[in-house]
């Protein structure tokens, strides 16, 4: 079975400071990893994904994430947070094994609050 853990329910950061949102995963095969963001009263927006290749993935709105196979982690980062980055962030995983189908498993979400 595949699973995702986001250990922090909420992350508070001052505007202009670095932002990190943590994610660890568990799959039986190799992972596809995703980050999504949900703004208030909106659907989920795709930020970035890791499939294979370079461990550092760059995505939308200045976000990036680093895949670490030995630590089974895929932490989301932004060098300088903006107040507008305040939202709910979800990490998701899909097992590359064909038998796992296309099912995405989501973490519990981390609320990010960026203070001016």
């Amino acid at each position, binding site marked *: 079975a595949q699973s995702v853990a986001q250990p922090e329910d909420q992350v508070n950061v001052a505007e202009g400071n670095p932002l990190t949102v943590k994610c660890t995963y568990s799959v039986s095969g190799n992972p*596809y990893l995703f980050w999504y963001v949900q703004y208030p009263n909106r*659907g989920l927006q795709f930020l970035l994904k890791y499939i294979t290749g370079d461990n550092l993935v760059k995505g939308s709105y200045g976000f990036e994430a680093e895949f670490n196979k030995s630590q089974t982690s895929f932490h989301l980062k932004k060098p300088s947070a903006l107040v507008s980055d305040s939202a709910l962030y*979800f990490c998701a995983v899909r097992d590359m094994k064909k038998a796992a189908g*296309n*099912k995405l498993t989501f973490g*519990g979400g981390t609320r990010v609050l960026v203070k001016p």
Partner: protein
Amino acid sequence: SAVISQKPSRDICQRGTSLTIQCQVDSQVTMMFWYRQQPGQSLTLIATANQGSEATYESGFVIDKFPISRPNLTFSTLTVSNMSPEDSSIYLCSVASIAGGSETQYFGPGTRLLVL
């Protein structure tokens, strides 16, 4: 990425009634999915909507409660039947699309359902 719309965007319903949610995509897609996001919770996959065959339901979800239609490659409906207050959630449609040589799921804006 695919442009996905959902109708209605929100609704307030009485217990015991049913609501049908529509999902429309601007391009033909093979895979469509329905998720539920209960208040303050993460996303849970309800079912995969298969064109030309019955939907594939996840554990804990049954066709009698959540019948799904997929008449073509751009449209799907989810019905929430015999509703109770516990069905109050955001219901999200998603589609799998090939982006950058690999599959990514994109989400609609969601339907916010309150059952009284």
